[in-house]
């Protein structure tokens, strides 16, 4: 039996396993539909109506409407698929990533310029390193 509990020991990180892929299948397929310009236009014109065309859960739908990327990932979203949403919004990967950290976009950009987030203290919750 595979044991993925080890991943829960890495703080602030969701590992996209086959199980999560199954849970998020329709959410991620919706994201992929945004690779077509016509679909992007229909989504932008009425997001809720476009989302209703997909058999996704209420929690997944609300997370998309709220652009809450952490909630999307907690419900099976994968960041490379979610990237189609922020590309549609005209937002950079860096801005989207910043929104997941609770930092402002400026704070996050400054952290990256200063060398990024140090791995010290965020490798393992149990081992405190």
């Amino acid at each position, binding site marked *: 039996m595979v044991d993925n509990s080890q991943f829960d020991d890495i703080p602030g990180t969701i*590992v996209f396993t086959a199980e999560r*892929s199954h849970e998020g299948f329709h959410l*991620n397929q919706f994201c992929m539909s945004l690779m*077509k310009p016509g679909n992007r236009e229909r989504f932008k014109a009425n997001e809720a109506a476009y989302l209703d065309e997909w058999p996704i859960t209420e929690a997944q739908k609300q997370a998309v409407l709220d652009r809450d990327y952490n909630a999307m990932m907690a419900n099976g979203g994968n960041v490379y698929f979610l990237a189609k949403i922020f590309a*549609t919004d005209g937002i950079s990967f*860096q801005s989207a990533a910043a929104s997941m950290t609770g930092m402002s976009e400026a704070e996050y950009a400054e952290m990256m310029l200063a060398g990024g987030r140090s791995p010290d203290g965020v490798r393992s919750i149990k081992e405190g390193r």
Partner: protein
Amino acid sequence: MARITAGLTTSHVPAIGAALDQGKQHSDYWAPVFAGYDWTKQWMSAQRPDVIILVYNDHASAFSLEIIPTFAIGCADEYPIADEGFGPRPIPSVQGHAGLACHLAQSLILDEFDMTVINKMDVDHGLTVPLSLVYGQPDVWPVRVVPIAVNVVQYPPPTGERCFKLGQAIRRAVEAYEEDLNVQVWGTGGMSHQLQGPRAGLINQAFDNAFLDDMVDDTQRLRHVSHLEYLRESGSEGIELVMWLIMRGAMGESVRELHRFYHVPASNTAVGHLVVEPTDTEEQET
């Protein structure tokens, strides 16, 4: 006969492609990134490879969640540029080398690597950003490409050891191809980065620099870096580095380092770039 003459690794950050496409390559932010490839551009104009076997990962562009191949090889004549959500990049489509690709597909499968064969595929930034970094903005790419797509989107990616062995099998297959071709193998992705969750922005310069060192000197260590170690040390997306080991496996036992570049940051990512040439010609260990 075909021969592998050099190997190259590079990150494939999408923002690098966007910077080039939008004419921002001379800005204070981007100029140091592009400068790291000046040596390579010059070197490449003398090397003039016929074919690049380009190892990369698709980012939900060609492969949806319907089918997730672990290793796939492109056997098409041409690869259009993917629309990743903001229109296709304004770059030429990529020309394949179907003859070498079909030979590789057959050889690798019979050599016990169960490749998925792709006859039609759009290619995204994972494949095109490395070409842009090395060749700039030509009207036509001056090289043919055999894409090898590796799943690193859904856990688990193949192990580093498996990737290294695939590289060794690629070398055996290339050396058995009759046409006289100058072939390079590129491994792309990495270095440390995490694009998701509250830990996004993780960069581990010590891990990355040790990885660059050991790509040259200590492949035994790199072949056995566990997935958990990649996730902890190099971020959830740093695990893309397993793709570099396919290139390294294709180089044989020992290599000479020709060029190295490391820079933080490009968007969310540490950029690493290495150019090596194989130095042993005898039969490789398997």
